[in-house]
């Protein structure tokens, strides 16, 4: 086994997360799929840090985690705000601009 195998797992997780963002309708599940994509990117960074023998990748993965935490806080606040006004957490219902 070589460390590149972790990159394959990360690629698969990223792709599955992308499908989830497109296919699922519940805003919270869509958001969880975005988190999955961010985590897959983090795994890639950690793996490359190991392959290249430097800690830079881990530092960037650490920053990504902080950004993801911020994103979760703001995103969930938006979902709650939309739920309050529209009584629905479905991403298909929030199409006010279309009509």
């Amino acid at each position: 086994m070589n460390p590149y195998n972790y990159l394959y797992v990360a690629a698969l997780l990223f792709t599955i997360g992308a499908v989830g963002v497109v296919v699922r309708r519940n805003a919270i599940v869509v958001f969880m799929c975005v988190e999955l994509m961010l985590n897959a990117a983090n795994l890639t960074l950690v793996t490359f840090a190991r392959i290249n023998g430097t800690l830079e990748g881990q530092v960037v993965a650490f920053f990504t985690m902080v950004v993801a935490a911020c994103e979760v806080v703001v995103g969930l606040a938006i979902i709650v705000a939309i739920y309050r006004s529209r009584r629905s957490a479905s991403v298909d219902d929030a199409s006010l601009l279309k009509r």
Partner: protein
Amino acid sequence: MLEIQTPEAVMFWVLAPLSVIAALGMLLVKKAVHSALLLAWIMVTLAIFYIAQDAVFLGIVQIVVYTGAVMMLFLFILMLVGVDASDSLTETISGLRPIAITAAIGFGGIFVSLIGRATLGHSAYGLKAANANGNVEGLAYKLFSDYVFPFEVISALLITAALGAMVLAHHQRSVARPTQREQSIARFRTGTIGAAAGLPSPGVFARHNAVDVPALLPDGTPAPTSISATLKARGDMLESKSFELGEVDNTVTEEK
């Protein structure tokens, strides 16, 4: 030169398929809570991968921040928002699903074959040298020397996000909250007088009194207003028919 030991290989070949299966399960399960639990499992496996790859600090942070804080936040919001029709898996835009799956197979295939063909021009080094003084010390040195400016920017981002969440979650009433007196007047003035006394309580008289069984109206039909709308949406409603009295037994047996 990096030598990967057998235990790590075994760990990888056990956990990697499990995490990919859990990710697929996230797309296929109906309830958002089950998706959240599967995502928590994926995050735990990723934390184990990090620790196996000499990123001990990130592995612990992954468990504390992601499976601890972030997933807890997701579950809180799921509790607030509750269940509604968006949990169903029916596709609303026709043809979206086949297109998404085809695109995903193409994208994933390109991704995987790209990783398979790419070479870095050197073999994997491993983090033995970089972690010589310990992983946390190495990361801290990098963070507070080369990356001190991004670190400060990130702290500004965190404060901004906290403020943004407060602004978004703050809810200002556009009309004053109705007082008890106004509510009582509205109950009598609008609608039927039957609703003035409040909604009927659930349960079938004398046979069952659980909250998931609609009460029976005098004409024998179940009263839909007697149970919570959430239970109805979740499909946790029982049929009141089975608790109905077939025939009222009027005979009195005297006991002495």
